[in-house]
């Protein structure tokens, strides 16, 4: 059961081949068996079983939705009423939100079952899931490797079949990078496509929620449930949501694929490059035309990102002050002590580093040189994407410079860690949608291919990904021990 795709599970449930209760129990058992991955922070057994029963009722009534009864899991960044939402931090270890994120509500409405809350880098700041207060997540393909981050729990859970699919969020690569490192499909939608309401903010102008799934078709099903304008999020965009599965089978004949030379230069592992070349060849066989392009400002993405994201996070995380909720230090002597010790004791090293960087970048005398300059670069990068996507249908490239690195390998070298997002960050700065799809293996570890499209072209990206998955089976490989 656990190896079925969402579409297959939906058919099975409708045909009553198995019930949602049986299916949910199956996933709960697997979660229990594979605790060594540390993919979940909270497992909501009782809630899941209650939702499964309600789903079976709905299926019996004939009022079921496509996702009714399907067990999924939420990245622990989405607020869930009555269930602890930690955001991977000691600060919120005991925080239970009095409301649901819009995304969570949408899945509840569709009748999906929530298995639990998935591990993540603290406040989504990290590329390896090692900054989580709840411990590192392990990569199902090699438990000594990182699963990537920040949605590391989501990627590991989907890869290891501990959830039929999962949500993630992507600020600089946090869906695509772990999807690539764990061999699953991840989609970061256009900024504004999925509501951010109830999704704990890291960098508001870059954060975007999206699906992490086993296949492109599953991603289409998940995105269908997640996408849409939300009046509670002023930055969500009021454009119609297409039927994401309608064009999956469209032919790719004549598709123009752009390959930016900046994506294939120094720093890219040669085995990864060779794997990607094979994948591009596959697209050529599907009728695509390959065009070499250049995006000269891509190299500026990392420095711009590491000004803008920390600047926004420095303000976004100010609300965690020990006054109203979350962690409060013992016996504060006065207000300053309450602030400094509550924040000092509850935030991890990487979170503190980014708050400090952001505070510095916004300070009087530095604002113009850092924040404003970074915003200018951001505009240049957006222009690069617009120009490129005016001449090609999709841009392809690597997701990560190499396959999953070892746990602990880059923790003492933040710059090396930041560089692992070198191919993903520019996409968030531009706000365009992008996917990571499994494209092969190097020494037994998965490699992801990145597809980048124009604004609101998710349906096109899903079509391009799906067609590839019709002629390849990289997305069907299961890590050993998780069959």
């Amino acid at each position, binding site marked *: 059961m656990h190896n079925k795709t969402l579409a297959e599970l939906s058919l099975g449930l409708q045909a009553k081949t198995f019930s949602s209760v049986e299916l949910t129990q199956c996933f709960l058992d697997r979660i229990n068996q594979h605790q060594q991955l540390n993919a979940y922070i909270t497992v909501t057994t009782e809630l899941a079983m209650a939702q499964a029963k309600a789903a079976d009722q709905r299926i019996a009534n004939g009022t079921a939705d496509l996702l009714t009864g399907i067990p999924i899991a939420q990245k622990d960044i989405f607020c869930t009423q009555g269930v602890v939402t930690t955001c991977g931090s000691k600060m919120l270890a005991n925080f239970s*939100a009095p409301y649901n994120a819009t995304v969570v509500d949408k899945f509840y409405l569709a009748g999906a079952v929530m298995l639990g809350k998935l591990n993540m880098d603290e406040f989504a700041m990290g590329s390896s899931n090692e900054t989580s207060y709840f411990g590192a997540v392990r990569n199902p393909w090699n438990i000594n490797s990182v699963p990537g981050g920040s949605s590391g729990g989501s990627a590991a859970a989907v890869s290891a079949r501990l959830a039929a699919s999962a949500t993630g969020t992507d600020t600089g690569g946090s869906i695509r990078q772990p999807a690539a490192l764990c061999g699953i499909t991840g989609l970061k939608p256009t900024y504004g496509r999925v509501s951010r309401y109830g999704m704990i*903010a890291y960098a508001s102008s870059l954060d975007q929620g999206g699906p992490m799934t086993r296949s492109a078709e599953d991603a289409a099903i998940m995105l269908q449930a997640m996408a849409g304008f939300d009046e509670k999020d002023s930055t969500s965009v009021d454009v119609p949501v297409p039927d994401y599965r309608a064009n999956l089978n469209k032919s790719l004949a004549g598709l123009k694929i752009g390959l930016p030379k900046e994506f294939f230069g120094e720093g890219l592992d040669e085995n990864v490059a060779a794997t990607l070349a094979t994948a591009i060849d596959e697209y050529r066989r599907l009728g695509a035309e390959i065009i070499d392009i250049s995006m000269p400002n891509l190299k500026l993405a990392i420095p711009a990102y590491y000004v803008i994201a920390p600047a926004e996070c420095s*303000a976004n995380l100010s609300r965690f002050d020990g006054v109203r909720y979350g962690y409060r230090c013992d016996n504060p002597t006065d207000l300053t002590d309450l602030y400094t010790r509550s924040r000092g004791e509850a935030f991890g090293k990487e979170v503190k580093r980014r708050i400090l960087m952001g505070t510095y970048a*916004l300070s009087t005398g530095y*604002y113009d040189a850092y924040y404003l300059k970074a915003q200018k670069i951001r505009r240049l990068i957006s222009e690069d994407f617009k120009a490129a996507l005016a001449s090609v249908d999709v841009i392809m490239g690597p997701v990560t410079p190499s396959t999953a690195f070892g746990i602990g390998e880059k923790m003492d070298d933040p710059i090396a860690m930041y560089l692992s997002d070198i191919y993903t960050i520019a996409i968030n700065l531009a706000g365009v949608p992008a996917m990571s799809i499994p494209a092969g293996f190097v020494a037994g570890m998965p490699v992801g291919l990145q597809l980048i499209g124009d604004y609101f072209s998710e349906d096109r990206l899903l079509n391009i990904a799906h067609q590839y998955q019709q002629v390849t089976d990289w997305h069907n490989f299961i890590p050993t021990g998780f069959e």
Partner: protein
Amino acid sequence: MEWETVIGLEIHTQLSTRSKIFSGAATAYGAEPNTQACAVDLGLPGVLPVLNQEAVRMAVIFGMAIEANIAPYSVFARKNYFYPDLPKGYQISQMDHPIVGVGHLDIEVDGVIKRIGVTRAHLEEDAGKSLHEDFHGLTGIDLNRAGTPLLEIVSEPDMRNAKEAVAYMRKLHELVRYLGICDGNMQEGSFRCDANVSVRPKGQIEFGTRAEIKNINSFKFVEKAINHEVERQIALLENGGKVVQETRLYDSVKDETRSMRSKEEANDYRYFPDPDLLPVIIDEAFKAQMKAELPELPDAKKQRFKVDYQLDEESVAILTASRALADYFEAVNKKSGCEAKLCANWITGDLSAALNKAGLDIIASPINDERLSGLLARIGDGTISGKIAKQVFELLWQSAASADDIIAEQGLTQISDTGAIVAIIDKIIADNPNQVEQYRSGKDKMFAFFVGQVMKAMQGKANPAEVNKILKERL
């Protein structure tokens, strides 16, 4: 040395929207602590602000009223600082791109009209309140006020004494109430003022170093706080000292200002555009619509009242102090058909006195314009005298009946029947021979005695003009 004072005011007006600027929670004053703060106001993780359109409308209409530039593009920014009653650790305000640009307001002091520049006005959210009493040495936080919309109106340093500052503040207070964008309640903090005060030797062009006096919530205190601060700065300078740039707090009990924090201790607010909110775009069509909705403004109304109704300065000032009172006057004038002066006298006299006594505003008056008009109409057509009208007014105040019903019920109709008046007068002349003698021998004052006697005998209902006429004939 002769000194010149320079004053600029920053006025925080609380906009009278029903809900908060970025959430759906109510803005009503005086609720139990923390009962009017929703997830957004509490700054819970994951919540997002959504701009209240009504706050934008109010800001734009204010901009129109001061003939300011309305920004076609304005931006909300985060002002970062930590304080327990600031739930998010930043206040959403506007910095580089305020919604209202340069405008002006004309004030009048001692008969001289002076134009005061308005630098800008921007939208922002209010913080909550820290309560230091009743918590056994701890501090309580009430977040009901958090997220209440404010329009911060910043003047140019154009005022040269406390009187001008008060005149400006009063003028603005009147204006925002006219526009219906602020209830003006200063006790509840709906209209608060920070004053930037400096002094310089008369004739010097450069400004002196200023001190900012925070949170002054009455006209009286503004005048006192500024005068005190000016004296303090002059004394300091004349004794060879220097004014330091700082924030000071006015203590109304001790009537002094004292230092809160110096420039060095000031926060670096690290403003940057709020990524949760889109820029506010105001197009020409919206501006045209706001212009059409702009009510008659106080200055125009005063001028019209003077010319159209021929009223004296004092009556005009009272009647136009609020739009509601001016509307009331105009309704009574129209409905009663009485001359403006009579209407004005009743409204500024008996009605205002009764309202003051009861602590009521004109909009809560027990006698609405319809019922007062009914009373004045009966004075106008001679049915009752002014004296009887005062009795009827009392009864109008206490009941819901109309003036006509009261007059009929109490039999208060004025008697103009000459026969009845003649009979009474003849009887009084017969009963008071001594007084008649005195009058006839030249003591004119005795005439009032006879008028009084007639009125007394007729319970005040006799038509005074008729009484005078007949008395003169008979005596």
